């Protein structure tokens, strides 16, 4: 582990030195590395196999309080010098801002220790994965079913050094596994989906998920239409994660506060949803499963932040600049620069606190409603101040009558104010006791841990 870190730190230090030579008052350099292997499955066979080896250094140079960022994948001395020079020269051309940018100093306490590495997962290649998948594919074919999915594994690393003395490093493995079992033509008839995002790949997990999807797909045959309207619903953890992904971004991202569209803005200390809802962001993944990331893109330790405690807004996540702007303390949640983001802070490791019920106990509270395993294409931008979201059912969803799962139903669209929906959860016995880790769709390291939920009167607004 020390060789990749030492090599990365040496290159980061080259970038820092080059930035100073180019005239920057202060410089921060961030290393992002990935060595990842992917298999995709479609319509019962492996359709794509790839391995990507990528490393990038992002340099933030500050001159007179103005900051500019440049990045490069050319990690040679010349490449890093050019990158640092670009950032420094660009910063020097900018007017002095009214809010001068300051790099954060080293944290007073080191990041928490996490168990983030699995040797076997780091080494898993396409051929071995294909061998794991072979019996699963064969079992599906025997049943006349198609398998689809992704099996993405590898190593991600993040290192940060700055001229203020920040020095942080993390490397960890991941396994992003998603399996769908489908009647053919795939996507048009019954289907079932399971996903798991964890630090290690395990054959027994893959086999168990595939067994679950095959069994559930059989139960999902011959779906019936249901009319739009309000239904009591039990949401499986995958569906809950779909909602929380947007919930975190529109409520607790720093850009949402900058723009004034966060539903949490100006409401700290106020009850905004149900008293049984406690939501934290914890990069150490203190709840157990998942893919931890103990530092942020400024090299700060990720703090465990209570966003909502028993329905009351208690805080948000911040990088150093956002914290200063909004008069808060930084929490170690800088996202860094990527294709979508020019920086800021965002929740990356949401954890919804578990309740007390088994899935059967949640279903037992439903007299007539729906059991939903997954949502599709959720969007939370309609009315962000109310957390109004829309999306559709996807894969297996079932009628529930008198606590028992019945006929499968065809996809239907929901449009619902999620703060109000969460307020209708009847209590901790409306929340599942078991937690599952799920990754975000952009493979960006986001990891949400959540239980199943029982929500009365969930609004469905149009059918397919």
């Amino acid at each position, binding site marked *: 582990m020390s060789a990749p870190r030492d090599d990365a730190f040496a290159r980061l230090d080259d970038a820092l030195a080059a930035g100073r030579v180019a005239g920057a008052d202060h410089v921060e350099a961030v290393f992002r590395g990935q060595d990842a292997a992917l298999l995709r499955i479609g319509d019962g066979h492996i359709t794509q196999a790839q391995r990507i080896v990528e490393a990038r250094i992002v340099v933030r140079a500050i001159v007179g309080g103005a900051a500019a*960022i440049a990045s490069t994948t*050319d990690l040679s001395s010349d490449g890093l010098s050019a990158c640092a020079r670009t950032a420094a020269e660009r910063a020097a051309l900018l007017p002095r801002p009214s809010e001068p940018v300051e790099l954060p100093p080293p944290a007073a306490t080191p990041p928490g220790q996490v168990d983030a590495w699995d040797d076997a997962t780091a080494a898993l290649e396409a051929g071995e994965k294909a061998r794991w998948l072979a019996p699963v594919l064969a079992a599906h074919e025997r049943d006349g079913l198609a398998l*689809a999915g992704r099996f993405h594994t590898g190593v991600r690393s993040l290192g940060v050094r700055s001229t203020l003395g920040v020095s942080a490093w993390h490397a960890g493995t991941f396994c992003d596994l998603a399996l769908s079992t489908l009647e053919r*033509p795939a*996507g048009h008839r019954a289907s079932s989906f399971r996903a798991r995002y964890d630090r290690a790949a395990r054959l027994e997990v893959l086999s168990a998920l595939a067994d679950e999807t095959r069994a559930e797909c059989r139960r999902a045959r011959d779906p019936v239409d249901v009319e739009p309207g309000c239904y009591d619903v039990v949401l499986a953890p995958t569906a809950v994660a779909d909602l929380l992904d947007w919930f975190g971004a529109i409520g607790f991202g720093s850009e949402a506060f900058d723009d004034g569209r966060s539903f949490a803005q100006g409401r700290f200390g106020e009850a905004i949803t149900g008293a049984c809802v406690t939501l934290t962001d914890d990069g150490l993944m203190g709840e157990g499963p998942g893919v931890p990331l103990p530092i942020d893109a400024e090299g700060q330790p990720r703090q465990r932040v209570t966003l909502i405690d028993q329905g009351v807004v208690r805080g948000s996540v911040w990088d150093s600049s956002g914290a200063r702007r909004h008069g808060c303390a930084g929490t170690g949640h800088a996202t860094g620069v990527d294709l979508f983001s020019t920086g800021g802070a965002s929740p990356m490791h949401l954890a919804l606190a578990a309740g007390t019920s088994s899935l059967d106990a949640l279903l037992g509270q439903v007299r007539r409603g729906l059991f939903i395993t997954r949502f599709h294409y959720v969007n939370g931008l309609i009315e962000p*101040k109310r957390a109004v979201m829309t999306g559709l059912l996807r894969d297996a969803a079932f009628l529930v009558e008198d606590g028992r799962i019945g006929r499968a139903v065809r996809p239907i*669209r929901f449009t619902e104010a999620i703060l109000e929906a969460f307020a209708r959860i009847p209590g901790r016995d409306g929340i599942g006791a078991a937690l599952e880790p799920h990754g975000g769709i952009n493979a960006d390291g986001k990891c949400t841990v959540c239980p199943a939920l029982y929500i009365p009167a969930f609004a469905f607004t149009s059918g*397919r």
Partner: protein
Amino acid sequence: MSPDALLDLALEATRAAGARFAEVRLVSRRRERLTFRDAALDGAVDERDRGLGIRALVGDGWGYAGTHRLDAAGVRAAAESAVRAASAIGGAAPVVLPAPITGRYATPVVEDPFAVPIGEKLALIGAADSAMRETSAVERAGSAFKGSRAELSALRTETRFRTSHGTDLEQSVTLSGAKLAAIAVSSSDFQIRSYPKSFEGNVLQAGFEVVRALDLPGRAPQLADEALALLEAEVVPAGRRTLILDGSQLSLQIHESVGHPTELDRAFGEEISLAGASFLLPERLDSLRFGAERVNLVADATTPLGAGTFGFDDEGTPATSTPLVRDGLFVGYLSGRDAAARLGRPSASALRAESWYGLPIVRMTNVNLLPGAGTLDDLIGGVDDGLLLSANKSWSIDDLRLNFQFACEIAYEIKGGRRTGRIFKNPVYWGRSPEFWGNCKAIAGPEAWEMWGWLFCGKGDPVQIMHVGHGCAPARFDDVGFGARS
């Protein structure tokens, strides 16, 4: 190592590792993104990456590897990874290899966006912000006017592409674009008005001249006025009405309900793992009525200014124009070589990769709605009771691309063939793709036809981001569902 030597080494190493055919792409990208908050520069990012992508064919299975390591050891390791990956795939159908070609392509650029001084860019956005703040509505609004947001984008992708059979291509694609928005807030509401389009704005294949042509300062006052007025506006009543979409929203309607379902890999069920399938199954080709007879849609990788325009796609197929919907009938797919061959058709030159770190998959190019006749005012003149919607705010569509629901920033009321001046906030409309396009009652003409560029089309798993284009003129749709309040 020179680019030629690097490409030669990659081809030789891939063949030596056991591939019967190899494609290698050396990709250099530069992206500048400047974001502004109240005229102050909030983010100044200059991203550059350079790497090698290798697609290896073993039997009839393709494997892919991408690497930033461009030394000999890095290239050989990538070649071996690509071949190992290919060996794990059986291949769905026999692969037919293309005849070798050579060629070059470069975006026509009048003013290099990377060469425009940062001071000029700051001045342009500063002028727009000032114009916003000088309106009487903003002066009266106090803290309800949250401020302006702006973004300037420039992207250049330079690609060298070679195959083991002798194809040798070189292209340089440059995109430029901008967005300006006004934000208004109250304790319970957030409203935004964007120009020329929401999110990244309009990004076209050209130089900075397209940014100057937008006249951001000239359009700024209207944005501020409307954002503030939306705080007081009512929500569109639920019901069924006539809808006119301007290009800023119609381009996304085309994207989601025409572009994605006509991707042939989706139709074959090969994108199920993330994005889903398509209601446009291959057996429906040339028989399914997709829309009204006036509806004609093409996938055209040659459209001037199109964000999805290029000389060659990422498996070396020269850019083409492929009909998708002709006179309302579904007649074609977006495709690459292998998928198209399964239907006995030529490639639609639509196999594209985000960069060297993604394997090429079927993507949109420019999916364009061909023009009808008349102006936007002519369309409005034909509507007795309807709404004109502009600028997307929310988007969602099911995994077969049938049931969609969109929200826009603003709806302008139309009564008796005229705009009444009344506006509505958070307008939500919904429908099913074939019925919606079947109810297309009018499309404005060539004088109202524009290109709209979208930078952030996501597809693949893990997601690859792609810039695509949609040419369209405003269009009218009857009997559309409005309102979806929870």
